[in-house]
Every structure is written in structure tokens, then in C-alpha cells.
């Protein structure tokens, strides 16, 4: 990942996809590293309702009320590719992403439908 790009425009708020193409959250924030005088480097992608609290305190608090999902930190090295979406190297569960969907799935699966 070299070259320059606008973090706010090209990375923030993009869709996260895991190695299987599953949608598993958004880039809610980005962790940067670097001391005074150093060039900043992207250290990790942050995702989850608690992260949103920093960007929009009221709405973020509401989100944390409704969702038990915690703050997830995905190291930058886990990003396989980023363009229109941000693709990760492993399945969502290995990062703790997409837990809300996993929890509900158990209940909805029990209801018969077209196909299982």
C-alpha cells in the first residue's frame, strides 16, 4: 500500500468484506501511528458501535444501546485489497466482526422458508 490517497474519502466509511465476500461492517475509524515529526502510518481499521461514539456521541451511544457488538481493531496488514470496498484476508469471525448477524442467524434459521 504505497502512494498517497485521501483517508477521509478513500478509506473511511467504506464497506468491509471478509475473505468469503461477506459484508461485515464499515471502516468506522482509522488508527494512525507515528511520533512527533514522524510520518503517520495507518496501523489499523476500527469498526463497531463504540467507535462511532467518538464521531457522533449521541447517535453512537444509541447504537451501543441497541447492539452488543464491541470495538473491533483489524491490523492494517490484514487488509488484502482496498478499492471500492475493503477486503480482509480472513473470515469475519476471526476478527470478531459480524457478530450481530451470527447471533440472530441461529434464531432465523429455525423458521422454515424457501430453502435452507
Amino acid at each position, binding site marked *: 500500500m504505497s502512494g498517497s490517497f485521501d483517508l477521509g*474519502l*478513500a478509506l*473511511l*466509511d*467504506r*464497506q*468491509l468484506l471478509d475473505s468469503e465476500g*461477506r*459484508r*461485515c*461492517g*464499515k471502516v*468506522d475509524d482509522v488508527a494512525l501511528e507515528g511520533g512527533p515529526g514522524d510520518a503517520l502510518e495507518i496501523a489499523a481499521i476500527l*469498526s463497531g458501535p463504540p467507535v*462511532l461514539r467518538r*464521531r*457522533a456521541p449521541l*447517535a453512537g451511544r444509541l447504537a451501543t444501546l441497541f447492539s452488543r457488538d464491541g470495538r473491533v481493531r483489524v491490523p492494517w496488514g490484514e487488509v488484502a485489497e482496498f*478499492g*471500492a*470496498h475493503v477486503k480482509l484476508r480472513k473470515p469475519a469471525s476471526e476478527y470478531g466482526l*459480524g457478530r*450481530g*448477524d*451470527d*447471533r*440472530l*442467524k441461529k*434464531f*432465523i*434459521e429455525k*423458521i422454515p*422458508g*424457501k*430453502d*435452507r
Partner: protein
Amino acid sequence: MKVFQVALGILAAIGGFVDIGDLVFNVAAGATFGYQLLWVVVIGVVGIIVYSEMCGRVAAVSGKAVFDAVRERLGFKVGLAALISAQVVNLLTLTAEIGGAAICLQLLSGLPYRWLIVLAGVALLVVVWVTTFEWIERIFGYCGLCLLVFAVAAVRLDPAWGAVGKGFVPSMNTESPLLYAFFVVGLLGAAMTPYEVYFYSSGAVEERWGPKDLGLNKANAMIGYGLGGFLSFSLMIVGGALFLGQGIEPEHIGTIALGAEVPLGQIGLLLALVGMLFAVSGAAIDTLFAGAYNLAQFLGWEWGRYRHPSGAPRFTVTWAVLLALAVALVLTGVDPVQLTEYAVISSAVALPLTYIPILLVANDRSYMREYVNGRLANILGLIYLVVIGIVSIAAVPLLILTNVGQN
């Protein structure tokens, strides 16, 4: 075979274009101003074509649906405001469509309205849960084509065709310019209803459109919406030929169906009611999904029409909750026609928040590559942004000043 498939898709799109907003506003506009406002429908239809084509192209090239773009371009805070306004408008629209379906069922069966609201809600739930989307589109699209009875009715009523022709040229011949403006806003809002682009763009992502499908995208948008607009003309002409100057305001769904019964008799009435039932029920399904798409896309959840709804759990729960909320709202006894007026006017307010991010994303060369907006798409896009900007600002004052189109 491919041509056949495209033709089938287009047929379904025509049947799917008209929803309760179009039914109410076109017939009411005809009843109040005759054919004078036909030109507004043309502007509205071109607008929905321009933005649908753009959304479809963005979806095909980048895999992003509308609320992916909203979140990305407006950020979390402003995007959240866009999301909330979209969801409120969606819920109002959904409620109006379900109420409309229940009234059609009542007129067809004579059973009590309250039971039929519950029946309509349960039927929608079952249909969405057990039927594939391919079939949903076919069943509701084709049965919605019964609405073509209004085109036959328009011809049968033998309107003054010269006056109809003049209606396509903007002019204002009225003593109540405010009411005229109210109907302009309403007709634009009804034609450019935002849930249509949410649904369309998400559908394009779901069907895994790629750059090779851009021709299909253009054809779908132009022919589908274009011919849908033709149905809107018919409704307004029927409204004008039958109700203008009679002091009849189509404030009940049954009055709209009367537009087909007077010139065509019982069979006209039956076709009109069946067409309306399937058109508003199909629109209810689109709106229901649009609401779930928006929330899931904004928050990054898995979404889509999976074989089994457990493929996208939070998405499924979202639409189920929206359906329950809408049924509960209809059960409060709110009048679907009046609710439609509020829904359409509030969708006019929310239009810019939907369309600005799309225009921005469609111009982003970093992932749209050679498929970024051309000059024509940008010029039209900007013109429509100005139009919907004005409409958005004028909508609420007009709603108040005209007492919801009553004076």
C-alpha cells in the same frame, strides 16, 4: 431469448412503476387542473430515468448501492440525517401502500377493512418469505399491468385531445397558483420517489451487474420508467376527463377505480381494482426492502434476498420490523390517501439528500474509471439537482399554505 427476457423485465417494470403516490396525485391533478399538469409528469419521469441510470451504473461498476454512497460521501453524521429522513419517508410510504392494498381488497371482497389490513400484512410476509424475487417481480409486475385499463379508459372517454396536447407545454391558467405549485411538487415527488432508486440500485448489486450490463441498465431505466410514465398520463387524463369541474375529489381509492368503471363498466372496475391491488402491493414490497437495504448498507451489515432469509439476519429482522410497524400504523385508522399526500410531499423534501451523493460518486474516477458520468449525465444531473432543491424547499410551505391541497 435474451430479447424475450429483457421484454419480460420491462413489462414487470411498467407494472411496478405506478404506486399509490402516482395513483393519488395523477388522478387528483387531473380532477383539479384537467390536463394542464401533464408536462410535470414528463419532467419527473426524465428525472427518475437520469438518476436510476446513474445508480444502476454505479452499482454495476463499483458494487455500491445508494446508502453505501451516502455513508461514504456524507460521512456518518450527515449521512445519518439522510438515513433517518429516508426511513421516515419509507415507512410513511409503506404504510400508505399497505392501507391502499387493504382498501382494494375491501372493494373486491366486501369484508371488514381491519381484517383485511392484517390479511394484507400477513400475505406480504408470507410472499416475501417463501417466494423468490424473480417470481415476486413477475406476479406483481404482470398483474399490475391490469392498470393499462386506465389507458383504454382514457381513450374511451374521448378527451379533448387538443387540450391534452397543450398540457405537455408548461402553462398556468388558474386562480390558485399555490395549489398549482402544490401539485407540481406532488407530481414530481410521486414520479421521483426515492425508494425506487434505493431498490433499483440494490437490485443491480444483488444481480451482480458488471460493466457488460450497462446497456441493460440504460434500457431498463429508459423504457421501464418511460412506459410507466405513460400510465401516469392515462391516470391524469382519466381524472381530467371524468372529474374536472364535477366537484369530485378522488379522496378515496374507490373513486380512482371509478375512472375505469364509468367508460368500461364492471370489467373496467374489476381490472382497475386488481391492477391497483397488485401495483400497490408490489410497491409495498419494494418499499419494505428499500428500508432494510438502506439501514444495512449504512451500517455495513450483510444484506440481500437470500434463498433463506437467515442469509442476512439483521436485514431480515429490519424488514420484518418495518412491516409490523407499518401494519400497526394502518390499524390506527389513518386514511391511506391522506397519508400518501404526506408521504409524497415529505419524499420531495428528502430527495436532495439521496441524489447529491449519487451524483458525487458517479463522478469519482477512482473506481468508476471510464464509466464516470458523461457530460449529458452531469448536465441533466445538475439541472435536476436544482429542480429537486427548489421542490424540497417549497414542499412544506406549500403543504401548509394549501392545507394539504384542500383549498
